[in-house]
């Protein structure tokens, strides 16, 4: 049954990937001609035709699509139209930096948002609760570029504690990770709070209290396992965003990540690079979703049983 579940999920993941790749391929190719941007305005038609032929853009769409796929299946993501490097190499050059920044930001959000959300829920209505929630509103309504610049002004320019741009050391990581993580920490705190409040008012929490369980035990052994299901769902959605959506933060801090590469590649219609990045982001999302699904089954026995009966929602 576990195998069947995994098979169905993998099949669905493969289908998603196919749809993403196809959609990206078609949209990129019907939205404009790369030669318009990559070649100078006064390039002659002969030059344009030469490059179109070189890049295979003169062939019918279905033909391009098929050769793209046959290359993909051998691990060839194509060549950057702009600098003739393999697209995958360019992406993999940036990916570790993005992973580092996104991972640190995620860790920071969890370390801040989760405990604050739990505390606010446990003491709901208290001044602590109100303080956390008010701060959270500031946290996620502050635009990243603004927070980033504010941090640079304070910690780089004024106090001269931390570097403002680049990615050479751990010190370089602090400001961008904080910038990227703050909004999510705030969202996570609010979300954790409401998920926990929902659970804390359930009759089984009264039962746990009637057993004489301590407050810590009630929170961690009884409430949190129930509240974790919606929290993990949000986390799963967020991971993709942290991988691909850090453009603004990367730009402010000159962080050499995927987000900036993507924006640049889109701007110059560098087809192979855009495709490679989008495939990577889609694969991350699909894999995260798979993990979240597995977590549901592990954390919530009701899902597990539904699954064995084949009626999973």
């Amino acid at each position, binding site marked *: 049954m576990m195998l069947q579940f995994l098979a169905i999920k993998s099949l669905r993941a493969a289908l998603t990937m196919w749809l993403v790749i196809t959609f990206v391929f078609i949209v990129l190719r019907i939205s404009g001609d790369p030669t318009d941007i990559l070649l100078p305005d006064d390039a002659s038609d002969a030059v344009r035709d030469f490059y179109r032929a070189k890049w295979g853009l003169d062939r019918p769409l279905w033909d391009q699509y098929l050769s793209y796929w046959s290359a993909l299946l051998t691990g060839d993501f194509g060549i950057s139209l702009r600098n003739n490097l393999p697209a995958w190499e360019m992406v993999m050059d940036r990916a570790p930096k993005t992973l580092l920044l996104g991972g640190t930001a995620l860790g920071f959000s969890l370390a801040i948002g989760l405990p604050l959300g739990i505390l606010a829920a446990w003491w709901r209505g208290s001044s602590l609760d109100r303080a956390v929630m008010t701060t959270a509103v500031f946290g996620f309504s502050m635009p990243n570029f603004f927070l980033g610049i504010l941090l640079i002004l304070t910690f780089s320019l004024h106090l001269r504690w931390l570097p403002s741009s680049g990615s050479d050391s751990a010190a370089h990581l602090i400001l961008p990770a904080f910038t990227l993580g703050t909004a999510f920490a705030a969202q996570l705190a609010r979300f954790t709070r409401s998920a926990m409040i929902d659970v804390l008012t359930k*009759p*089984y929490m009264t*039962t746990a209290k*009637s*057993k*004489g369980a301590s407050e810590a035990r009630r929170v961690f052994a009884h409430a949190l*396992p129930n509240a974790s299901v919606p929290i993990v769902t949000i986390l799963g959605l967020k991971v993709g965003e942290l991988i691909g959506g850090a453009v603004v933060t990367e730009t402010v801090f000159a962080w050499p990540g995927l987000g900036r590469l993507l924006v640049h590649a889109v701007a110059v219609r560098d087809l192979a690079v855009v495709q490679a990045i989008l495939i990577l982001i889609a694969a991350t999302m699909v894999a995260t979703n798979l993990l979240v699904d597995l977590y549901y089954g592990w954390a919530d026995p009701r899902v597990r049983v539904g699954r064995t009966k084949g009626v999973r929602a």
Partner: protein
Amino acid sequence: MGCGWPVLAAPRPFALNPGPAMPLIDVQDMDVTIRRRDGTPVQPVRGVALCVDAGETLALVGESGCGKSLTCLAIAGLLPRRAVAQGRVVMQDTDLLALPRRAARLLRRALIASVFQDATNALNPVRPIGWQVAEAIRLRRSVTRNEAGAEAVRLLGRVGLPEPERRAKEYPHQFSGGMNQRAMIALAIAGRPHLLIADEATTALDVTIQAQILDLIADLQAELGMGMIFVTHDLGIVAQAADRAAVMYAGRIVETAPVAALFATPRHPYTRGLLQALPRVDHDGRPLSTIDGIVPPPDRMPPGCAFAPRCSRVGAGCDAAVPLSQKIPGASPPRFLACHRPVPVSEEV
């Protein structure tokens, strides 16, 4: 005995017995105050006094919203944060309401267990049944995880769960309501409580399951010598399961008496009204009567006796002062009544 009703109960095997003169639990003049969201306090439970002896069952009876459940939650220390209990809840010479929070939790953990109405929702959906029972054991006794697990399986078998070994690994959603209530009872008796509070424990169940659960509770009570507070609005269950009954109306206990005496000669007009609303085989052909009106909400209590606006015997003075609960002279075992114009003893129900 402290509460005045001779009970044939097995003596407790271990010595925490408060002695023959002292009830197991003695609740004196207890109020429950709830602070509403707009800040105004309401008192849905007022001046409640009751006591229970070891091995005895006290039924707490009344319409919905009369404060039965809040009384139980206050005794068990399970009130929501916005609610506060004042007064005295004495067990083993200690006033539970006067203790610091942690000390009160530990003493209650050793003495009191509760069974709730909706067992399926009162059990944690993401924990196996056996885990939940074992946790209750481990919280009250120092045993290893394995010992607690084995004891949990034994308890689940004791409360009549078939195949306890396998069932212990299952989850509440895989159980029927009756099976969950059995598991809930196993969880409650896991710590060998001195006092078991059953709050509408059989209300949500089918009649046949209800009878089985009542039998089970009675068995366990005899076996463990527990005192019990049994909340119900079903007078049929009171007659079957309780030694004494306390009738609550609008947050106060209006009459307390041994069950037989209460059914034979109800002295409070409200008690009489409840009994007359009960179908009986020996009053063939007589229409059932009802008590007109509804229980007044706690923030709109009439002056004087709260039952006066609905009372058939209402007269001068009923709206002047809240009637105090007083011992009925000469009644043995003792009865208590809070009424300005009680039903005469001679009047037939």
